[in-house]
């Protein structure tokens, strides 16, 4: 009881005395970074999990790339289950002269079977539940479609749009779509149509790329019976989805992204940890006398240890809660930056991140702070009589082990994978060691400069070089923040630009898909009449790989998510006499005239992903029957040529009789967009894809994602500043003495201020130099080794990194030490 009472009283007093401000700031910052990410991740995950069955708008969905046989709906209805049908496909709508790619969903009566649609009468109007989808003749659209069409609001009687060959009225804004969660991030805006309107559009033919869904809902046992029946009758291209297993790749992607953000937030802990340790060390120094007196007064060591630990725990809980509150506020920033990637509003977060905040705060505090603080209990009472008996030595080994243990625990917890945690820690450790080594070299260099400098320059540089340990910590701490921010900026801006600039100027920038066989001739004529040169109008047959040799293809047998996806889905096959100009056969040989048609040529990347070797016999399920042939060549394909290319190609004799749609690509020079509008009018069933627009969308997603990570790294930068402030505090007594002596010897305030500015600006410049160099080096390696593009030197990046860091650290450091200059020198001399 005494221990608790004393601990709380001392804690209160420490707080009022200002001793804990820095420690509070460092800890709250760490917790805020972690919980901001945790709250955001929690909201995204809750959006995915929202209301169970709503995820697929049913209890069970049969999904196929081909029309689902009527027998399925009949069977379900026979079991007393409700059914609804939806079709999804990309298409282009025309509003006035504006065309826009949309993701069409056509829904039959009854949709959705689980959950409810919400619509708004117009932009800004309150959302209201709707009993079903749009009536025939009407369509509803996501809010973001309106500005894309150049519309500010809907007309009262609905805005006219053309979808394929139909004219429809856009009458409502789609505020919430229950099964949108399955495709949370969508590039094209949603257009909800009544299924009865689809035939008239002419957009859906047997060869169109359409996803068909049969939605089923009802009593549990009946659903189970239907599932069993469907399992026995399922076509090879179809799959059954239930709420638990819907879109595992989405959950995986979101989990991966949140894990990345969480680990990014942990970098803040790494940097802030240095500030926590420094601030704790200072606390030890400041409290040594008090503890010596308490020992004189009869406080036993175990009581002091308990007081220290209890005080730390109480402090940790309070600050962690405060940090969690900051994190909750900060997550709004993340939602603002990245939230609009999600087609629907994110639900409010749960309370789970509060536990993340508490655990992070306590682990960080105990790891970085406890080892120095428990040393307090070892203070000899004799110090009360003899001040020359120093403060307890810093427990270097204990502190290092404590910090490493806390960090390892948190990284392991957040990474959820011991191996990844070990690799991350090793990488972080190596980076920090390299940074520290580089700083040491730079500080030595500054020492060389110091010996040649005069006046404030010498004084200022001495401030940096005479405290090398503090300099290393401060410069490396801030350098990590600069590095993280700049690296993202490079990836976000420079790498993408370098890649785009690396494309040939006449690379195709338009794709046409869903070209019906009867449209091939007219399309070729139209393009020729417009002087547009296509890369060939190529046939595309959809097939699902069912066997490789004797082995049945099972998505679950692959560890690689891409392999799982490829194995689970239909992909595009084609046939040709000759390989495309940008294809190169790297194994086996291409077929010649008169050779047997049973041959496949496979793209080498796909072959590697799925474990296909030359000579393997592949079996595809195509249009309701099996097509089988051996692999006779492997091809290397230059995907970034933007020509139409295929994973698997056969001689015309093998796939030529199968139902096919056609696809082509071409380069449309800027200013000739009218060609596309005319094309849309003439051949409304063709779906054009604008590569520039798609790249723009990809860049938008990338930028949003990178901005979110940058936002998290701003906390790291702030932590770097705290390390600097903690370093200044640690040297405050020494600085006070030095300044007093210099003032006594006649140095003006202005001169001392100049020296401080030189010291901190130099530290900031060093941190910026180091961070920029590391970011540039990493980006250069990434560009060369991973993306295979040439990255040009970006002087703006260096200017921002070096000058920005110099200005920020210079200003913050000078401001933090300025109070020393306004005190009378006698005070400093007295305090010694």
């Amino acid at each position: 009881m005494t221990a608790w009472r004393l601990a709380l009283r001392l804690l209160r007093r420490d707080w009022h005395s200002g001793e804990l401000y820095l420690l509070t700031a460092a800890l709250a910052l760490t917790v805020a970074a972690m919980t901001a990410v945790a709250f955001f991740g929690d909201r995204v995950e809750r959006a995915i999990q929202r209301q169970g069955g709503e995820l697929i708008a049913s209890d069970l969905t049969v999904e196929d790339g081909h029309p689902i046989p009527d027998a399925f709906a009949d069977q379900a209805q026979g079991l007393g289950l409700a059914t609804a049908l939806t079709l999804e496909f990309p298409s282009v709508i025309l509003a006035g002269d504006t065309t826009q790619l949309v993701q069409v969903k056509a829904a039959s009566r009854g949709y959705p079977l689980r959950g409810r649609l919400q619509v708004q009468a117009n932009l800004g109007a309150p959302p209201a539940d709707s009993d079903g989808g749009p009536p025939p003749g009407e369509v509803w659209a996501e809010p973001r479609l309106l500005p894309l069409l150049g519309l500010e609001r809907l007309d009262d009687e609905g805005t006219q749009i053309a979808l394929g060959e139909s004219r429809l009225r856009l009458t409502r804004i789609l505020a919430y779509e229950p099964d949108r969660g399955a495709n949370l991030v969508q590039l094209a805006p949603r257009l909800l149509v009544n299924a009865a309107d689809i035939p008239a559009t002419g957009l859906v033919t047997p060869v169109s790329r359409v996803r068909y869904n049969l939605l089923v809902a009802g009593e549990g046992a009946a659903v189970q019976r239907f599932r069993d029946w469907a399992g026995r009758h399922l076509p090879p291209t179809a799959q059954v989805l239930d709420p638990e297993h819907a879109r595992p790749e989405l959950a995986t992607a979101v989990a991966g992204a949140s894990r990345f953000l969480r680990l990014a937030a942990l970098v803040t802990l790494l940097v802030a940890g240095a500030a926590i340790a420094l601030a704790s060390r200072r606390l030890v120094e400041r409290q040594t006398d008090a503890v010596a007196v308490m020992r004189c007064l009869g406080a036993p060591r175990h009581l002091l240890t308990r007081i220290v630990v209890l005080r730390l725990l109480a402090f940790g809980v309070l600050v962690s809660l405060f940090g969690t509150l900051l994190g909750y506020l900060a997550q709004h920033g993340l939602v603002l930056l990245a939230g609009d990637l999600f087609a629907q509003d994110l639900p409010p977060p749960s309370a789970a991140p509060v536990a993340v905040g508490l655990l992070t705060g306590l682990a960080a505090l105990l790891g970085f702070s406890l080892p120095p603080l428990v040393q307090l209990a070892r203070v000899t009472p004799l110090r009360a009589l003899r001040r020359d008996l120093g403060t307890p030595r810093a427990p270097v080994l204990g502190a290092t082990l404590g910090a490493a243990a806390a960090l390892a625990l948190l990284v392991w917890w957040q990474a959820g994978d011991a191996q990844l945690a070990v690799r991350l820690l090793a990488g972080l450790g190596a980076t920090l060691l390299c940074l520290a080594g580089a700083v040491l070299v730079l500080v030595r260099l500054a020492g060389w400069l110091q010996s040649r400098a005069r006046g404030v320059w010498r004084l200022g540089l001495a401030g940096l070089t005479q405290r090398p340990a503090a300099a290393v910590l401060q410069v490396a701490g801030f350098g990590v923040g600069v590095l993280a921010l700049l690296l993202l900026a490079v990836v976000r801006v420079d790498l993408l630009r370098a890649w785009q600039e690396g494309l040939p100027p006449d690379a195709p920038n338009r794709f046409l898909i869903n070209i019906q066989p009867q449209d091939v001739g007219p399309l070729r004529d139209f393009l020729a009449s417009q002087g547009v040169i296509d890369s060939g109008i190529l046939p595309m047959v959809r097939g699902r790989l069912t066997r490789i040799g004797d082995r049945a293809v099972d998505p679950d047998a692959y560890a690689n998510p891409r392999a799982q996806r490829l194995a689970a889905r239909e992909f595009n096959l084609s046939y040709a006499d000759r390989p495309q100009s940008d294809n190169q056969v790297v194994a086996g040989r291409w077929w010649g005239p008169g050779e047997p048609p049973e041959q496949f040529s496979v793209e080498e990347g796909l072959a590697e992903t799925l474990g296909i070797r030359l000579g393997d016999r592949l079996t595809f399920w195509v249009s309701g029957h099996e097509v089988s042939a051996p692999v006779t060549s492997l091809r290397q394909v230059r995907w970034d040529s933007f020509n139409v290319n295929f994973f698997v190609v056969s001689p015309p004799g093998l796939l030529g009789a199968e139902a096919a749609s056609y696809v082509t690509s071409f380069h449309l020079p800027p200013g000739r967009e009218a060609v596309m509008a005319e094309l849309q009018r003439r051949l409304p069933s063709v779906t054009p894809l604008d590569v520039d627009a798609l790249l723009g969308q990809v860049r938008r997603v990338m930028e949003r994602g990178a901005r979110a990570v940058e936002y998290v790294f701003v906390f790291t930068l702030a932590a770097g500043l705290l390390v600097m402030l903690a370093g200044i505090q640690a040297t405050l007594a020494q600085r006070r003495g030095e300044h007093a002596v210099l003032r006594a010897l006649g140095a003006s305030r202005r001169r001392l201020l100049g020296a401080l500015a030189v010291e901190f600006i130099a530290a900031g410049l060093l941190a910026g130099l180091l961070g920029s160099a590391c970011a540039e080096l990493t980006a250069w390696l990434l560009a060369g080794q991973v993306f295979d593009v040439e990255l040009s030197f970006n002087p703006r990046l260096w200017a921002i990194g070096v000058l920005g860091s110099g200005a920020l650290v210079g200003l913050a450091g000078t401001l933090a030490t300025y109070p020393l200059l306004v005190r009378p020198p006698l005070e400093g001399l007295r305090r010694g």
Partner: protein
Amino acid sequence: MATDSGNAVVRAQGLGKEVSGPAGRLTILHGLDLCVKHGEAVAILGASGSGKSTLLGLLAGLDQPTQGGVWLTGQDLTGLDEDGRAALRSGRVGFVFQDFQLLPTLTALENVLLPLELAGVAQAGPIARAALERVGLAARATHYPRQLSGGEQQRVAIARAFAPRPAILFADEPTGNLDQETGEQVTDLLLDLRNAAGAALVLVTHDAHLASRCDRRLAMRAGHLEPLA
């Protein structure tokens, strides 16, 4: 083990202290004997570096001798570890230091409360307030040390020392950081309170005038203790 001979509150026998220095072992105290009776005030005079403070630290159990032993309130300190010695000090021993040693983050009242709470004294609040009143600082109870003058800080330290009604008070140059007039006031207060409480006092000083107000005076010279007339 109790070796109380008569009514000694602190007794040292053959007390010696050696420390290791750059020039090898250095003997600070050479086999001292000392006995302080209940209620007795003993002043130990000596020049700087003569070993006065080391002796005070050993008598109060703040450090361990390299030879000989100390009995505090009848209890042999030799067999006790640091926590045992702290438990013995708690509530029985008071301290007044040259540089006051108030906890800067606690108010005057809270500083006085501290030894009472450590000793588990019930009703610590009224006792602490009464102690502050006795030193004339009741009105400054909520002030922090930095808001008090040197003399006031030492008065708070005296209140803190006497609040638990200790059997013995150790004072290390209690007027060393004060001007003459304030030093006189603090001395008066210290001795008055000691008389009223009936506590023994071991006072280390180089101020002959202060020493003259004690019952007995001893001089520390080169690690030896000699009585003064």
